[in-house]
């Protein structure tokens, strides 16, 4: 569903608020289909905010954006899709692990996508956030 909307209606993201409304619809869907996802998102945000210099905001294309020093590290859509930005070298190492995929849109960049589907994925998402955070801070 998410991929279908992004592929065929992705252009709507340029309309003010359209992406945010779509993310709210994802939240509603998760609330019905997998309510614990909303808890995992809260837990990830709470853990991330405990790190020095970390902040969150609304992502311009919908979802929760993770920032350090005013720059985006990645963002989490409310269906559990985590998009993170790494160097191309780190990305290729991560891709070898088989847990992450090429970013669902930006294939030839350092962006990766990772779907949180279960509680063990939440732990890995936090690991990815930490890697991106440390890369930015060091």
């Amino acid at each position, binding site marked *: 569903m998410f991929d279908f909307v992004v592929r065929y209606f992705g252009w709507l993201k340029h309309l003010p608020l359209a992406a*945010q409304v779509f993310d*709210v619809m994802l*939240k*509603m869907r998760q609330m019905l289909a997998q309510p614990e996802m*909303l*808890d995992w998102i809260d837990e990830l945000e709470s853990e991330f905010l405990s790190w020095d210099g970390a902040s969150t905001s*609304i992502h311009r294309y919908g979802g929760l954006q993770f920032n350090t020093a005013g720059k985006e590290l990645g963002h989490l859509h409310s269906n559990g899709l985590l998009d993170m930005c790494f160097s191309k070298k780190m990305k290729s190492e991560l891709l070898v692990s088989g847990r992450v995929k090429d970013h669902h849109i930006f294939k030839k960049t350092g962006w990766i996508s990772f779907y949180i589907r279960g509680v063990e994925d939440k732990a890995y998402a936090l690991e990815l956030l930490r890697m991106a955070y440390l890369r930015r801070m060091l």
Partner: protein
Amino acid sequence: MNMKAFLKSPVLHGVLVANFSILAIIGLHKYLLGNSSKESILIFSEFVVLPILMGVIAAWFWRDLGLSGKRTVKYACFNSLFAILMSAIFLGEGMICLLIVSPLIFAFSITGTFMGQRMFKKKNQGLNVSIISMLFVVFVVDAVSEHDYQNMVGDEMLIRARPEQVWKHVVAFEKIKQKNDYWLFQIGMPSPMQTTVDGYCKGAGRKCIFSNGYIFDEKIVTYEQNKDLTFDIVAQPLDPEIMGHIDILRGQFLLKDNLDGTTTLIGNSWYKLHVFPVWYYDLWAESITRNVHLRVMDHIKMLSETN
């Protein structure tokens, strides 16, 4: 939570203040418009900007509660449901209208709540005032703008009968007895039932009778036997449901002889919307008009082919 605690809780305060603030804005908007032709129009802002504002106001009351994502969704849904209930009580909207409007109310009020939650977390008063002011400006600009939208919906159907056999069922027809397939008709929206006519000529009166007894008075403006029946709607019922928000202006049946014993029947309707945004309500208007067409045209096809 007991009743006393609930009455004192910021959750309820947020819902009540948010809803009554929005009702006050709508009331003020209607009052300022007075008896102008704009009074009956429901603008884009009433379904997009005000629900966002409602969510933001509620989020302000809930800002110190440390709400989880799940709880925010639940409270925001409750806030939206309350708004829909208020619309039924104070704005006199019918059940089907509320059903149609509810996706907009839910989507934008919950979005507003999450936006508000973020706004008040940042404690940036300048930014917050800018966002509220921007919403206000959009509302005012929208309120004073002209709103005029007309559209035409056309449908085609192949009938295995010659035009002269079809024509006699086009001008007037007996009661439709087939079961309604369209879900809005099944849950109570009036559907076309019967058409009567005063005379078979230009200028004659025609009545389209709906399932709940509502009558559309029509006047035939083009009468080309076996080819073209065009009629203007001269009076239509004002109903709290759909009818108050859309004017049907004109209807038309065109018959095309395929010269092989079959006829292509084309049904066209012209309407004017009184509710905005068009990108949302026109989807519904087209769907409803199309299903009115299909119900009548299916009936004409059945009568023509049986005879």
